[in-house]
């Protein structure tokens, strides 16, 4: 190039130097245009890619909100059924209990509707590209969401605790109601003979309970031993440790074993029977307490209620929880492993 050497440059005429300068300027201009165009193309591609990604995220959000709407509609129908039953009327106690249930359902439905409206409001964040004038408001909403997110984990954990407590209360309420059914079964003014007969029947039935528990534990150990020998994992290990470590073929083999071995179905059925027997054990405890030291002519309904409350305050309630949990866990574990096999590992991610 002429500029490499002052000597060469000096040999160019003014006209040649002017032409050279013009050519260099045009090249710089062309290079700059190419660079700007490349940047614009890259930027356009980035925007298009982001738009596609936002569209997919919006679809996911719409699907979730759609599921929320379906849940709300279904729960509205359940609430309507409760209202209808409450409207049928009955004695004062029945009406009061129904009104209480109706209020519980109504409060839960109202709370669910608020959550649904908030979800719908959040969905609108996707619907349009943010207009400048709406940006401030959107930023404010998103700021609020961030704040909520930081708190919501704690709220959800609290919700889980509340659900667990509700579950426990539900079991207790169910059991207290089963004493109501017991009253109906043997009549309000209980004939002591009928009462004693029922006690004797229950006693005979639950004599097998300790043996059942022992057999259940033995069955579980045998099953787990077989699985461990053949595949290297117990049922629980297959579910909780296997997700990332066990090859799919091995999961399928474990699932085949669980499907085909009759001991598995027998074990789950035994868990269910144990849960049922535990209920009977509690029922018997209630009846014995209600019977003890009472006049031999009758067992008063209030004695049964008091006895139910008494039993529920003891450790006996744990027996039900143990057996129910064992039955539910065992079924759940088997179902999860079968799900691995049928739908692939992604189904349980």
């Amino acid at each position, binding site marked *: 190039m002429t500029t490499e050497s002052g000597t060469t440059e000096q040999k160019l005429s003014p006209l040649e130097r002017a032409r050279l300068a013009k050519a260099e300027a045009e090249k710089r201009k062309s290079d700059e245009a190419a660079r700007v165009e490349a940047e614009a193309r890259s930027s356009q591609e980035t*925007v298009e890619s982001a738009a596609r*990604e*936002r569209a997919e*995220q*919006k679809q*996911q*959000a719409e699907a*979730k909100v759609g*599921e*929320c709407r379906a*849940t*709300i509609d*279904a*729960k509205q129908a*359940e*609430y309507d*059924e*409760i209202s209808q*039953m*409450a409207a*049928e009327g*009955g*004695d004062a106690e*029945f009406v009061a*209990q*129904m009104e209480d*249930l*109706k209020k*519980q*359902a109504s409060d*839960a*439905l109202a*709370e*669910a509707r608020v*959550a*649904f409206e*908030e*979800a719908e409001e*959040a*969905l609108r*964040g*996707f619907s349009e*590209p*943010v*207009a400048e004038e709406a940006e401030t408001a959107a930023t404010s909403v*998103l700021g609020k*969401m*961030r704040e909520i*997110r930081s708190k*919501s984990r704690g709220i*959800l954990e609290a*919700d889980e605790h509340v*659900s667990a407590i*509700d579950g426990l209360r*539900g079991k207790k309420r*169910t059991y207290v*109601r089963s004493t*109501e059914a017991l009253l*109906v079964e043997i*009549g309000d003014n209980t004939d002591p003979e009928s009462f004693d007969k029922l006690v004797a029947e229950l006693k005979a039935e639950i004599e097998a309970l300790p043996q059942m528990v022992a057999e259940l534990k033995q069955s579980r150990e045998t099953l787990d031993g077989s699985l461990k020998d053949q595949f290297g994992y117990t049922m629980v290990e297959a579910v909780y440790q296997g997700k990332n470590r066990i090859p799919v073929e091995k999961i399928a083999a474990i699932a085949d074993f669980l499907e085909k071995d009759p001991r598995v179905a027998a074990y789950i059925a035994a868990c269910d029977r144990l849960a049922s027997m535990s209920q009977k054990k509690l029922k018997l405890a209630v009846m014995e307490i209600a019977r003890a030291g009472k006049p031999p002519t009758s067992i008063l309904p209030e004695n049964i209620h008091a006895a139910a409350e008494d039993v529920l305050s003891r450790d006996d309630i744990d027996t039900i929880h143990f057996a129910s949990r064992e039955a539910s866990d065992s079924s759940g574990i088997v179902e999860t492993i079968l799900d691995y096999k049928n739908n692939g590992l992604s189904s349980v991610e």
Partner: protein
Amino acid sequence: MKLVSDEDAKLILEFIEQKKAIIEALGFKITKVLSQARDLRTIKKARINLAKLK
């Protein structure tokens, strides 16, 4: 006009997921209440039938 950011999009999705979980938990509660109401009505009917038998 500008697109909602990736971070905000994820935040919205997470928020909606949380609301969905809350709605499902409340829905579960309503189902339990319905079950209790049905039981209550069954007991009422059983009492009425028992009274008729006496």
